[in-house]
């Protein structure tokens, strides 16, 4: 089958390119049912982007849900086997309330998960695939990477009370240094320790510039070791597109370690989000670790598309007495010429066409041409 790229929407082109990319790295497609037991989502409500779920009662009386998320289903079905890593990708419709519309929408989501005996190679591979996924969509992309382990260590070190921790993390996520500083002062954190958090929030930008700054923040062995691990993974990624940014924060109840978000120029929000979610695995009674990401292809809608000059190349007018066989041949001849044709008895309203033709017994006559 030959499909012209010009006929595919940006979203569809990306889906095909990503499937091919993930396949090349040995990831197999994970297919699943549209429905899942509602119970799975209730237990992990905060993991979901939106906690509204479409539910219905199945014929056996079980409360079911239209999948709002794919990762939870994959985690549920994965098995702990020492030394084994399950590598899957998916391309599924999910149903969730979007923040902007406040209404349920069917969203095509593509993603990739690597579950099992995860090591630093697996993490580097997933990050590489995240970067390459963005590169498939646009040359102008940025992959923001953060490390929740480092962030937690530093917040533990400054000794903020657990009830102020959430608000402080929100400030980090918003790059809000003024309120972070106020919260630390109100909590009685001494200046030196509060300054450490300010320094971490300043640690943003290209990997080679930021890593040396990170090493200087805390002298303890655990910090130094984590920075070194972070560095060794990031050094394998395309430096010109990767930035360290601690404002990337995912829910600490589910995520740990490296987390990331991807942006492409022209889309006002992130189109890729992922990270290590060992904590989710442990909450779902799995011993192994996991890392993965989702690509929100529906958000590519905001990418500017050049407006089409014409809806169709040719409108071929015919009257009720026209010979069907001759008309059929005329349309076929035009399409074989590579033109798009619509055969109509009258010119459709608001249709922009290149040329208007009239079908007659003696052949096709040109009525109008638009430049």
């Amino acid at each position, binding site marked *: 089958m030959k499909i012209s790229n010009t006929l595919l929407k940006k979203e569809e082109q990306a889906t095909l390119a990503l499937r091919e990319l993930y396949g090349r790295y040995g990831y197999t497609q994970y297919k699943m049912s549209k429905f899942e037991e509602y119970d799975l989502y209730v237990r992990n409500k905060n993991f979901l982007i939106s906690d509204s779920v479409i539910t219905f009662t199945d014929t056996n009386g079980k409360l079911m849900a239209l999948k709002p998320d794919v990762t939870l289903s994959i985690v549920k079905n994965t098995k702990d086997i020492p030394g084994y890593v399950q590598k899957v990708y998916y391309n599924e419709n999910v149903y969730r309330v979007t923040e902007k519309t406040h209404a349920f929408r069917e969203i095509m989501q593509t993603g990739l998960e690597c579950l099992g005996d995860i090591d630093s190679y697996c993490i580097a591979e997933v990050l590489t695939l995240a970067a390459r996924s963005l590169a498939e969509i646009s040359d102008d992309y940025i992959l923001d990477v953060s490390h929740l382990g480092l962030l937690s260590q530093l917040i533990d070190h400054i000794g903020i009370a657990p009830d102020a921790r959430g608000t402080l993390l929100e400030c980090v996520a918003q*790059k809000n240094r003024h309120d972070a500083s106020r919260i630390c002062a109100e909590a009685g954190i001494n200046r030196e320790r509060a300054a450490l958090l300010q320094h971490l929030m300043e640690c943003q930008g290209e990997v080679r510039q930021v890593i040396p700054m990170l090493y200087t923040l805390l002298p303890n062995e655990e910090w130094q070791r984590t920075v070194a691990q972070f560095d060794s993974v990031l050094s394998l990624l395309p430096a010109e597109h990767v930035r360290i940014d601690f404002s990337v924060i995912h829910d600490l109840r589910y995520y740990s370690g490296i987390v990331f978000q991807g*942006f492409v120029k022209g889309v006002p*929000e*992130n189109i890729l989000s992922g990270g290590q979610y060992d904590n989710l695995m442990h909450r779902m009674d799995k011993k192994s670790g996991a890392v993965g990401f989702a690509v929100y292809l529906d958000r590519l809608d*905001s990418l500017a598309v050049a407006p089409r000059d014409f809806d169709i190349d040719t409108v071929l007018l015919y009257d009720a007495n026209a010979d069907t066989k001759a008309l059929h041949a005329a349309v076929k001849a035009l399409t074989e010429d590579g033109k798009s044709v619509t055969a109509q008895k009258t010119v459709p309203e608001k249709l922009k066409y290149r040329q208007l033709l009239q079908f007659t017994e003696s052949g096709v006559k040109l009525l109008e041409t638009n430049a």
Partner: protein
Amino acid sequence: MLNVALPKGRLGDRVYAMFEKAGFECPSIKENNRKLIFENEVCGVRYFWVKPSDVAIYVERGAADIGVAGKDILLEYAPDVYELLDMKTGICRMAVAAPKGFRDDPRRTLKVATKFTNIAQNYYASQGRDIDMIHLNGSIEIAPILGLSDVIVDIVETGTTLKENNLEVIETVVPISARLIANKASWKFKTEQITALTEHLAMQLKAEE
């Protein structure tokens, strides 16, 4: 080109003056006309005036790269944006006000009238107080006078309006000031321009201290 959403009104004028000082001038903005969009190609900046409560929406959706919005709007609508700087202007506070001499009876559900339902909800939830929320769009001060509510949650600047309506502040919910906000994706692709501007504004604020 850096797109900047400014809040219409006095606050916007003050903020523009700061942006101008930071090297992002756009003289045409001072012309007396009804235009809403002003551009200076030399400085690479485009300003537009929008309703103060809409600034965050323009920035969140990427129609503006940066903007200036009150902390009240950011708390109420929680837009997904970066909050880069406290502009230390437009200073006021979100407060609970009640008729003079009002005493809260914890046995009763408290009737609260406000335009800022999320802020009020969060505030009373943090205190575990049961409330009956009444959403109003304006003239909040008359709600307790007419018996529509027990208290109001609203922005208080000087307190004159409250005084004139025989109300007084009984609690401060949160201090408010204007904040410089940025669209997350714009920040990634226009980092240098936005950071330079933020730093310049921060220096101006420091010099004024």
